[in-house]
Protein backbone atom coordinates (compact mmCIF):
# COMPACT_ATOMS: atom_id res chain seq x y z
CA UNK A 1 0.00 0.00 0.00
CA UNK A 2 1.23 3.44 -0.97
CA UNK A 3 0.35 5.12 2.33
CA UNK A 4 2.54 2.70 4.29
CA UNK A 5 5.51 3.43 2.07
CA UNK A 6 4.97 7.20 2.38
CA UNK A 7 4.64 7.09 6.16
CA UNK A 8 7.71 4.93 6.60
CA UNK A 9 9.73 7.19 4.33
CA UNK A 10 8.61 10.22 6.35
CA UNK A 11 9.66 8.59 9.60
CA UNK A 12 13.02 7.50 8.26
CA UNK A 13 13.60 10.98 6.83
CA UNK A 14 12.99 12.43 10.28
CA UNK A 15 15.50 10.00 11.73
CA UNK A 16 18.14 10.97 9.19
CA UNK A 17 17.65 14.72 9.77
CA UNK A 18 17.70 14.49 13.55
CA UNK A 19 20.62 12.10 13.85
CA UNK A 20 22.95 14.12 11.72
CA UNK A 21 26.09 15.10 13.54
CA UNK A 22 25.57 18.60 14.78
CA UNK A 23 26.59 19.14 18.37
CA UNK A 24 28.08 15.81 19.34
CA UNK A 25 27.07 16.45 22.93
CA UNK A 26 26.92 13.40 25.14
CA UNK A 27 23.87 14.75 26.89
CA UNK A 28 21.88 14.05 23.80
CA UNK A 29 22.65 10.35 23.81
CA UNK A 30 19.48 9.37 25.68
CA UNK A 31 17.38 11.66 23.53
CA UNK A 32 18.75 9.91 20.45
CA UNK A 33 17.95 6.51 21.87
CA UNK A 34 14.39 7.57 22.57
CA UNK A 35 14.10 8.92 19.05
CA UNK A 36 15.31 5.69 17.49
CA UNK A 37 12.87 3.73 19.64
CA UNK A 38 10.05 6.07 18.65
CA UNK A 39 10.80 5.64 14.96
CA UNK A 40 10.87 1.89 15.49
CA UNK A 41 7.45 1.95 17.14
CA UNK A 42 6.11 4.20 14.38
CA UNK A 43 7.27 1.85 11.64
CA UNK A 44 5.91 -1.22 13.39
CA UNK A 45 2.52 0.43 13.91
CA UNK A 46 2.39 1.56 10.30
CA UNK A 47 3.10 -1.96 9.11
CA UNK A 48 0.72 -3.48 11.61
CA UNK A 49 -2.12 -1.07 12.56
CA UNK A 50 -3.95 -3.73 14.56
CA UNK A 51 -1.18 -3.46 17.13
CA UNK A 52 -2.18 0.09 18.11
CA UNK A 53 -5.78 -1.04 18.45
CA UNK A 54 -4.72 -3.79 20.81
CA UNK A 55 -2.77 -1.28 22.91
CA UNK A 56 -5.78 1.06 22.81
CA UNK A 57 -8.07 -1.72 24.06
CA UNK A 58 -5.63 -2.37 26.89
CA UNK A 59 -6.06 1.18 28.21
CA UNK A 60 -9.78 1.32 27.53
CA UNK A 61 -9.89 3.13 24.19
CA UNK A 62 -11.87 1.65 21.32
CA UNK A 63 -9.67 2.28 18.30
CA UNK A 64 -5.95 2.67 17.77
CA UNK A 65 -6.53 5.84 15.78
CA UNK A 66 -8.36 7.40 18.73
CA UNK A 67 -5.52 6.51 21.08
CA UNK A 68 -3.09 8.14 18.67
CA UNK A 69 -5.16 11.32 18.64
CA UNK A 70 -5.25 11.49 22.45
CA UNK A 71 -1.53 10.92 22.79
CA UNK A 72 -0.82 13.41 20.04
CA UNK A 73 -2.93 16.07 21.75
CA UNK A 74 -1.17 15.58 25.07
CA UNK A 75 2.27 15.64 23.47
CA UNK A 76 1.38 18.72 21.45
CA UNK A 77 0.35 20.63 24.56
CA UNK A 78 3.57 19.70 26.32
CA UNK A 79 5.58 20.80 23.32
CA UNK A 80 3.78 24.15 23.16
CA UNK A 81 4.34 24.84 26.85
CA UNK A 82 7.95 23.72 26.54
CA UNK A 83 8.57 26.07 23.63
CA UNK A 84 6.84 28.89 25.45
CA UNK A 85 9.06 28.52 28.51
CA UNK A 86 12.16 28.20 26.39
CA UNK A 87 11.19 31.25 24.38
CA UNK A 88 10.64 33.29 27.53
CA UNK A 89 14.07 32.32 28.83
CA UNK A 90 15.69 33.30 25.57
CA UNK A 91 13.83 36.61 25.63
CA UNK A 92 15.17 37.33 29.10
CA UNK A 93 18.68 36.45 28.05
CA UNK A 94 18.43 38.72 25.04
CA UNK A 95 17.18 41.53 27.28
CA UNK A 96 20.10 41.15 29.68
CA UNK A 97 22.51 41.04 26.79
CA UNK A 98 21.08 44.05 24.97
CA UNK A 99 20.95 46.15 28.13
CA UNK A 100 24.52 45.27 29.02
CA UNK A 101 25.62 46.22 25.53
CA UNK A 102 23.72 49.52 25.67
CA UNK A 103 25.21 50.49 29.04
CA UNK A 104 28.78 49.59 28.07
CA UNK A 105 28.46 51.47 24.81
CA UNK A 106 27.05 54.53 26.60
CA UNK A 107 29.90 54.57 29.11
CA UNK A 108 32.47 54.32 26.36
CA UNK A 109 30.75 57.14 24.53
CA UNK A 110 30.76 59.29 27.67
CA UNK A 111 34.48 58.70 28.02
CA UNK A 112 34.90 60.10 24.54
CA UNK A 113 35.67 56.83 22.85
CA UNK A 114 33.29 56.94 19.96
CA UNK A 115 32.55 53.41 18.86
CA UNK A 116 29.48 53.98 16.79
CA UNK A 117 29.90 56.61 14.08
CA UNK A 118 26.20 56.41 13.19
CA UNK A 119 25.09 58.33 16.24
CA UNK A 120 26.84 61.67 15.91
CA UNK A 121 26.68 63.56 12.67
CA UNK A 122 29.87 63.29 10.66
CA UNK A 123 32.27 66.25 11.03
Amino acid at each position, binding site marked *: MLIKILLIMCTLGLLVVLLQKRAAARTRAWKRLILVALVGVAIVSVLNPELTTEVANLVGVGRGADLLLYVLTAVFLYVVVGFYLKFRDV*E*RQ*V*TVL*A*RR*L*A*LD*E*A*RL*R*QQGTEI*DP*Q*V*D*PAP
Partner: protein
Amino acid sequence: MTPRDDVCVVIPVFNEASVIADVVRTVRKRYPLVVCVDDGSSDDSAAAIAAAGAVLVRHPINLGQGAALRTGMDYALSLEQARYLVTFDADGQHDVEDVPQMLELLDSGEAQIVFGSRFLDRRTRVGGAKRIVLAAAIRYSRASTGLSLTDTHNGLRAFTREVAGALDLQINGMAHASELLSLVARHRFRYAEVPVHIRYTEYSRSKGQPLMNGVNIIFDLLFR
Protein backbone atom coordinates in the same frame (compact mmCIF):
# COMPACT_ATOMS: atom_id res chain seq x y z
CA MET B 1 15.74 78.66 40.19
CA THR B 2 19.21 77.22 39.84
CA PRO B 3 19.59 73.92 37.99
CA ARG B 4 19.98 70.86 40.19
CA ASP B 5 22.68 68.42 39.25
CA ASP B 6 21.88 65.83 41.92
CA VAL B 7 18.83 64.76 39.91
CA CYS B 8 19.04 62.36 36.98
CA VAL B 9 16.09 62.45 34.60
CA VAL B 10 15.53 59.15 32.78
CA ILE B 11 13.59 59.31 29.52
CA PRO B 12 12.72 56.12 27.61
CA VAL B 13 12.62 56.98 23.92
CA PHE B 14 11.17 55.04 21.02
CA ASN B 15 10.88 56.79 17.67
CA GLU B 16 10.42 60.31 18.98
CA ALA B 17 12.89 62.11 16.72
CA SER B 18 10.56 65.04 16.03
CA VAL B 19 10.02 66.05 19.67
CA ILE B 20 12.75 64.51 21.82
CA ALA B 21 15.31 67.29 21.33
CA ASP B 22 12.87 69.94 22.58
CA VAL B 23 11.85 67.81 25.53
CA VAL B 24 15.48 67.20 26.50
CA ARG B 25 16.38 70.89 26.21
CA THR B 26 13.42 71.97 28.32
CA VAL B 27 14.25 69.44 31.02
CA ARG B 28 17.95 70.25 31.00
CA LYS B 29 17.29 73.91 31.88
CA ARG B 30 16.32 72.72 35.34
CA TYR B 31 18.01 69.33 35.50
CA PRO B 32 21.13 69.19 33.32
CA LEU B 33 21.67 65.48 33.87
CA VAL B 34 19.35 63.70 31.45
CA VAL B 35 19.71 60.07 30.40
CA CYS B 36 17.75 59.05 27.31
CA VAL B 37 17.39 55.37 26.58
CA ASP B 38 16.79 54.95 22.89
CA ASP B 39 14.90 51.67 22.74
CA GLY B 40 16.06 50.63 19.29
CA SER B 41 14.42 53.51 17.41
CA SER B 42 14.42 53.30 13.65
CA ASP B 43 14.32 57.08 13.18
CA ASP B 44 16.87 59.76 14.08
CA SER B 45 16.05 59.82 17.78
CA ALA B 46 19.61 58.90 18.76
CA ALA B 47 21.17 61.79 16.89
CA ALA B 48 18.56 64.21 18.27
CA ILE B 49 19.27 63.02 21.82
CA ALA B 50 23.02 63.41 21.44
CA ALA B 51 22.63 66.84 19.87
CA ALA B 52 20.40 68.03 22.72
CA GLY B 53 23.09 67.17 25.23
CA ALA B 54 21.57 64.19 27.00
CA VAL B 55 23.44 61.01 27.78
CA LEU B 56 22.50 58.51 25.11
CA VAL B 57 22.06 54.87 26.04
CA ARG B 58 20.99 52.85 23.08
CA HIS B 59 19.36 49.43 23.06
CA PRO B 60 20.58 47.58 19.96
CA ILE B 61 17.06 46.17 19.52
CA ASN B 62 13.63 47.25 20.70
CA LEU B 63 12.97 45.69 24.09
CA GLY B 64 10.02 47.67 25.44
CA GLN B 65 9.51 50.60 27.77
CA GLY B 66 10.00 48.62 30.96
CA ALA B 67 13.43 47.46 29.85
CA ALA B 68 14.33 50.99 28.72
CA LEU B 69 13.42 52.38 32.13
CA ARG B 70 15.45 49.70 33.87
CA THR B 71 18.46 50.43 31.66
CA GLY B 72 18.15 54.17 32.30
CA MET B 73 17.95 53.60 36.05
CA ASP B 74 21.01 51.37 35.94
CA TYR B 75 22.93 54.06 34.14
CA ALA B 76 21.76 56.71 36.62
CA LEU B 77 22.80 54.52 39.54
CA SER B 78 26.30 54.32 38.11
CA LEU B 79 26.55 58.12 38.52
CA GLU B 80 27.46 58.99 42.09
CA GLN B 81 26.07 62.51 41.83
CA ALA B 82 22.54 61.26 41.18
CA ARG B 83 20.70 61.33 44.50
CA TYR B 84 17.29 61.33 42.91
CA LEU B 85 15.90 59.81 39.74
CA VAL B 86 13.00 61.18 37.76
CA THR B 87 11.23 59.24 35.02
CA PHE B 88 9.81 61.39 32.27
CA ASP B 89 7.95 60.63 29.03
CA ALA B 90 9.62 61.44 25.74
CA ASP B 91 6.57 62.76 23.90
CA GLY B 92 6.39 66.08 25.73
CA GLN B 93 3.21 65.33 27.67
CA HIS B 94 4.83 66.05 31.05
CA ASP B 95 5.60 69.46 32.48
CA VAL B 96 9.05 69.85 34.01
CA GLU B 97 7.58 72.51 36.31
CA ASP B 98 5.80 69.69 38.15
CA VAL B 99 9.08 68.09 39.20
CA PRO B 100 10.28 70.54 41.93
CA GLN B 101 7.30 69.83 44.18
CA MET B 102 7.99 66.10 43.80
CA LEU B 103 11.62 66.58 44.78
CA GLU B 104 10.56 68.62 47.81
CA LEU B 105 8.83 65.57 49.22
CA LEU B 106 11.99 63.51 48.66
CA ASP B 107 14.20 66.24 50.15
CA SER B 108 12.11 66.43 53.30
CA GLY B 109 12.16 62.66 53.63
CA GLU B 110 8.38 62.57 53.60
CA ALA B 111 8.46 60.14 50.70
CA GLN B 112 10.97 57.87 48.99
CA ILE B 113 8.98 57.78 45.79
CA VAL B 114 6.58 60.38 44.47
CA PHE B 115 4.07 59.65 41.72
CA GLY B 116 2.58 62.22 39.42
CA SER B 117 -1.20 62.08 39.14
CA ARG B 118 -3.35 63.66 36.47
CA PHE B 119 -6.50 63.11 38.48
CA LEU B 120 -5.69 65.10 41.63
CA ASP B 121 -6.71 68.38 40.10
CA ARG B 122 -8.66 69.51 37.07
CA ARG B 123 -5.82 70.70 34.89
CA THR B 124 -5.76 67.55 32.76
CA ARG B 125 -8.68 66.61 30.58
CA VAL B 126 -8.91 62.91 29.85
CA GLY B 127 -11.25 61.75 27.11
CA GLY B 128 -14.02 59.13 27.29
CA ALA B 129 -12.62 55.70 26.44
CA LYS B 130 -9.18 56.50 27.84
CA ARG B 131 -10.75 57.52 31.13
CA ILE B 132 -12.60 54.20 31.40
CA VAL B 133 -9.49 52.12 30.66
CA LEU B 134 -7.39 54.14 33.09
CA ALA B 135 -10.04 53.81 35.77
CA ALA B 136 -9.98 50.03 35.34
CA ALA B 137 -6.16 49.99 35.48
CA ILE B 138 -6.21 52.09 38.63
CA ARG B 139 -8.73 49.83 40.34
CA TYR B 140 -6.73 46.77 39.38
CA SER B 141 -3.47 48.26 40.64
CA ARG B 142 -5.02 49.38 43.90
CA ALA B 143 -6.50 45.98 44.52
CA SER B 144 -3.33 44.06 43.65
CA THR B 145 -0.80 46.29 45.41
CA GLY B 146 -2.77 47.89 48.22
CA LEU B 147 -1.33 51.30 47.34
CA SER B 148 -3.85 54.10 47.45
CA LEU B 149 -3.04 56.04 44.33
CA THR B 150 -5.28 58.04 42.02
CA ASP B 151 -3.21 57.55 38.84
CA THR B 152 -1.22 54.35 38.47
CA HIS B 153 -0.08 54.71 34.89
CA ASN B 154 1.66 58.03 34.85
CA GLY B 155 5.18 58.19 33.44
CA LEU B 156 6.24 61.03 35.73
CA ARG B 157 7.78 59.73 38.94
CA ALA B 158 10.59 60.83 41.24
CA PHE B 159 12.43 58.56 43.65
CA THR B 160 15.61 58.09 45.60
CA ARG B 161 18.64 56.01 44.63
CA GLU B 162 17.64 53.42 47.16
CA VAL B 163 14.24 52.93 45.54
CA ALA B 164 15.80 52.80 42.06
CA GLY B 165 18.06 49.98 43.21
CA ALA B 166 15.03 47.96 44.30
CA LEU B 167 12.92 48.55 41.19
CA ASP B 168 14.25 45.59 39.30
CA LEU B 169 11.69 45.55 36.49
CA GLN B 170 11.39 42.20 34.77
CA ILE B 171 8.51 42.97 32.45
CA ASN B 172 9.82 44.54 29.27
CA GLY B 173 6.50 45.75 27.91
CA MET B 174 4.03 48.33 29.12
CA ALA B 175 2.90 46.31 32.15
CA HIS B 176 6.02 47.53 33.94
CA ALA B 177 3.96 50.35 35.47
CA SER B 178 1.96 47.85 37.51
CA GLU B 179 5.07 45.82 38.27
CA LEU B 180 6.77 48.95 39.57
CA LEU B 181 3.86 49.57 41.93
CA SER B 182 3.96 46.04 43.29
CA LEU B 183 7.70 46.42 43.96
CA VAL B 184 7.05 49.67 45.82
CA ALA B 185 4.39 47.91 47.87
CA ARG B 186 6.59 44.90 48.58
CA HIS B 187 9.49 47.04 49.80
CA ARG B 188 7.11 49.23 51.78
CA PHE B 189 8.64 52.43 50.49
CA ARG B 190 7.08 55.67 51.70
CA TYR B 191 5.17 57.03 48.74
CA ALA B 192 3.26 60.17 47.89
CA GLU B 193 1.33 61.59 45.00
CA VAL B 194 1.31 65.10 43.60
CA PRO B 195 -0.95 66.61 40.95
CA VAL B 196 0.74 66.97 37.58
CA HIS B 197 -0.37 68.32 34.29
CA ILE B 198 -0.52 66.09 31.22
CA ARG B 199 -0.62 67.86 27.89
CA TYR B 200 -2.50 65.70 25.45
CA THR B 201 -1.36 67.06 22.13
CA GLU B 202 -2.19 65.67 18.72
CA TYR B 203 1.31 64.20 18.79
CA SER B 204 1.11 62.51 22.17
CA ARG B 205 -2.32 61.17 21.29
CA SER B 206 -1.00 59.64 18.09
CA LYS B 207 1.92 58.13 20.00
CA GLY B 208 -0.14 57.02 22.97
CA GLN B 209 -1.08 53.43 23.48
CA PRO B 210 -4.01 52.13 21.57
CA LEU B 211 -6.68 51.02 23.96
CA MET B 212 -6.36 47.40 22.89
CA ASN B 213 -2.94 47.50 24.48
CA GLY B 214 -4.74 47.42 27.80
CA VAL B 215 -5.66 43.83 26.99
CA ASN B 216 -2.00 43.04 26.30
CA ILE B 217 -1.01 44.55 29.62
CA ILE B 218 -3.50 42.40 31.49
CA PHE B 219 -2.12 39.27 29.82
CA ASP B 220 1.47 40.33 30.56
CA LEU B 221 0.58 40.61 34.23
CA LEU B 222 -1.35 37.36 34.43
CA PHE B 223 1.17 35.22 32.57
CA ARG B 224 4.49 36.65 33.54
